[in-house]
């Protein structure tokens, strides 16, 4: 069989582009709904998006999707020519149409679409649409051409407006070209040759690159960073001071170059926050509708750039926080009215970049976190003792919501659901090398702040030593380090919990040698070091023998066979070629609490 042109190579591009176009459609439709009105320009844009979807999908052979886009385009055409005026009802129908487009696209990609399924899903909706058009011919079914329009199309497929003399042998102008193709050369089953790459396009400003290729490049740079630190270690062992100085000078230059290279590769991985934000308006709209709430969604910092690899891990936690804000944060319209608040609740998401960190804040002006309720619940769950409850600060009370399985809502809605709690959100953020903080005032609202590193690939660490083992501790979590005097140490509770009292703050001490059962001669706190690290919004002090140098390392994921080993977020290679594990403070604290029987 002769296949007209090998289109499969364009499918990924088609999917990407269609998703982008669908996002634009979503944005427009939500704006329609918000403004309860449309401009001629917006209708034109919407028409054009549908037109592009139709044309592209029929070219790629997604005929059901193309048919649906065609029907919606037809509907928009009536609006474009003002034979149909926008109403809230029509807006709803368009949003339903948009949802169908998404659904059919997914089915087309999975190759799970068939005539029956398509009719079941789309026919009722399209019948509704055609009812608006007052057409006499209301359709119960839609006819989808079952063959590619490339072959089944009737009539002429091309033509000339001007009288162009037909040359006898059309490709003659290319007779000196080695790649001259006889007619029909493009009808083949498989692509026989690579498309020529040389001198392609004169003025293209950008190219599309597979993320995998960039990851490979980043890995290569990672190896360079490792080779670099091997060189540094080697230089340390040089005895001749003159040679050593010369060596170090050149290493400095190399270091500088690697840094620059790393920065430019990093910048190719960066995408604007806009990509993260774009998912939320539709979700918030749907929740607000279901719960009969009025919610205004504001964003800022959509141009702030973030590592593409980070987006994937960030989507779920952000979605969870936003769903929570809609569901449990923002009050119902009646309640808000009674409280003298604006009827419309506000959820705001903001991204900023500062000090090699991305800060994402999610704010809502809802009812805030009722810390007394949280404490009550924590006591009833057995997470917290009554005596301890009295000593807790406002922040510590709020942080109880990070305890596994914690929920204060008695009525479980299917929106934010049960099961996945804030503990999962925190551990997801921690996997990204970030931390989460919450601030909330009862009756006024809540603020969730995520602090994230710029990249997932490379991290600045401190090498810490316990016995004969070396570990890496990410610098981003470290607040300070000190060698404690015994007067600063106190014991609390009956389980012999040691705490460090520092500037009137009691910080739990976690002995790393206990956690990992490592033999060490340093057992007395005054002989070793305490590193105070951030743990959510509170702190813990990690006890180690000593720390060595700071360095940059490339994070390598731990093989899944070792996933059962808790306490580490990854591994990396040291300058001497040996492997060191990267400590995960959240996981370590969890082990500590488990061992001590807390929580």
């Amino acid at each position: 069989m002769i296949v007209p042109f090998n289109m499969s190579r364009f499918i990924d591009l088609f999917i990407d582009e269609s998703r982008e176009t669908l996002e634009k459609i979503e944005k427009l439709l939500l704006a329609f709904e918000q403004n309860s009105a449309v401009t001629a320009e917006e209708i034109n844009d919407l028409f054009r998006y549908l037109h592009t979807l139709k044309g592209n999908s029929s070219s790629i052979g997604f005929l059901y999707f193309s048919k649906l886009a065609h029907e919606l385009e037809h509907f928009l055409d009536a609006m474009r020519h003002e034979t149909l005026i926008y109403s809230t009802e029509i807006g709803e129908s368009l949003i339903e149409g948009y949802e169908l487009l998404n659904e059919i696209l997914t089915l087309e990609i999975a190759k799970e679409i068939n005539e029956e399924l398509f009719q079941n899903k789309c026919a009722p909706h399209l019948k509704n649409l055609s009812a608006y058009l007052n057409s006499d011919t209301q359709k119960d079914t839609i006819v989808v051409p079952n063959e590619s329009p490339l072959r089944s199309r009737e009539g002429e497929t091309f033509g000339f407006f001007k009288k162009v003399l037909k040359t006898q042998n059309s490709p003659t102008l290319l007779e000196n070209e080695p790649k001259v193709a006889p007619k029909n050369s493009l009808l083949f089953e498989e692509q026989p040759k690579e498309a020529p790459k040389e001198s392609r396009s004169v003025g293209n400003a950008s190219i599309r690159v597979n993320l995998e290729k960039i990851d490979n490049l980043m890995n290569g740079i990672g190896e360079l960073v490792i080779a670099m630190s091997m060189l540094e270690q080697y230089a340390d062992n040089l005895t001749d001071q003159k040679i050593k100085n010369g060596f170090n000078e050149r290493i400095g230059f190399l270091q500088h170059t690697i840094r620059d290279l790393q920065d430019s590769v990093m910048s190719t991985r960066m995408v604007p926050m806009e990509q993260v934000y774009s998912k939320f308006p539709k979700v918030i709209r749907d929740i607000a509708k279901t719960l009969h709430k009025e919610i205004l969604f504001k964003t800022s910092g959509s141009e702030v750039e973030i590592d593409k690899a980070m987006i994937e891990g960030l989507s779920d936690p952000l979605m969870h926080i936003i769903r929570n804000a809609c569901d449990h944060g923002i009050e119902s319209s009646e309640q808000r009215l009674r409280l003298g608040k604006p009827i419309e609740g506000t959820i705001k998401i903001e991204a900023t970049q500062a000090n090699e960190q991305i800060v994402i804040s999610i704010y809502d002006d809802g009812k805030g976190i009722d810390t007394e309720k949280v404490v009550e619940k924590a006591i009833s769950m057995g997470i917290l003792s009554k005596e301890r409850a009295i000593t807790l600060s406002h922040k510590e009370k709020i942080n109880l919501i990070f305890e596994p399985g914690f929920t204060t809502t008695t009525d479980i809605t299917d929106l934010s659901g049960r099961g996945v709690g804030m503990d999962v959100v925190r551990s997801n953020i921690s996997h990204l090398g970030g931390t989460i903080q919450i601030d909330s005032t009862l009756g006024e609202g809540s603020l969730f702040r995520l602090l994230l590193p710029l990249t997932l690939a490379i991290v600045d660490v401190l090498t810490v030593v316990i016995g004969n083992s070396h570990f890496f501790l990410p610098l981003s979590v470290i607040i300070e380090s000190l060698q404690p005097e015994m007067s600063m140490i106190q014991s609390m509770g009956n389980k012999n919990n040691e705490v460090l009292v520092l500037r009137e703050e009691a910080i739990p001490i976690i002995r790393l040698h206990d956690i990992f059962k490592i033999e060490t001669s340093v057992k007395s706190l005054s002989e070793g070091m305490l590193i105070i690290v951030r743990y959510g919004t509170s702190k813990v002090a990690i006890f180690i023998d000593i720390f060595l140098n700071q360095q940059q390392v490339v994070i390598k994921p731990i093989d899944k066979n070792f996933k059962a080993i808790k306490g580490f977020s990854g591994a990396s290679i040291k300058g001497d070629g040996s492997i060191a594990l990267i400590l995960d403070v959240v996981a370590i604290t969890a082990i500590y609490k488990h061992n001590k029987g807390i929580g």
Partner: protein
Amino acid sequence: MNLNPSILIVDDSRMMRDIVTYALECAGYTTLTQAEDGIDALEKIEAHPFDLIITDINMPRMDGIELCKALQKNEKSASIPIVVLTTESSDEMKSKGKESGAWAWIIKPFLPDDLLHVVTTILGHR
């Protein structure tokens, strides 16, 4: 006659531009440039002479018909042959295309052979 004609491909869809580019590359054309709408095309034509323009009609900012008209107005670009490549097969589109100065039309989805036939016919004629 130009042995390596330079062709400008104008379409707001990246995929469509790549498909047309690919079809032409397979036939041995190597000097191919892409533009994403009429405005972008005009800027590129201003900077660089082309032997042929293949354009979509439905595009943001400036559509294909407006592009044809703008090219006709300018003495420098009035003689460049234009092929419209569009999903619209209506007579209205055809008459609009003809009036605005296009040389030929092709309906999307297109057969690469049709595209090549049109392109070689026009370039051969020149």
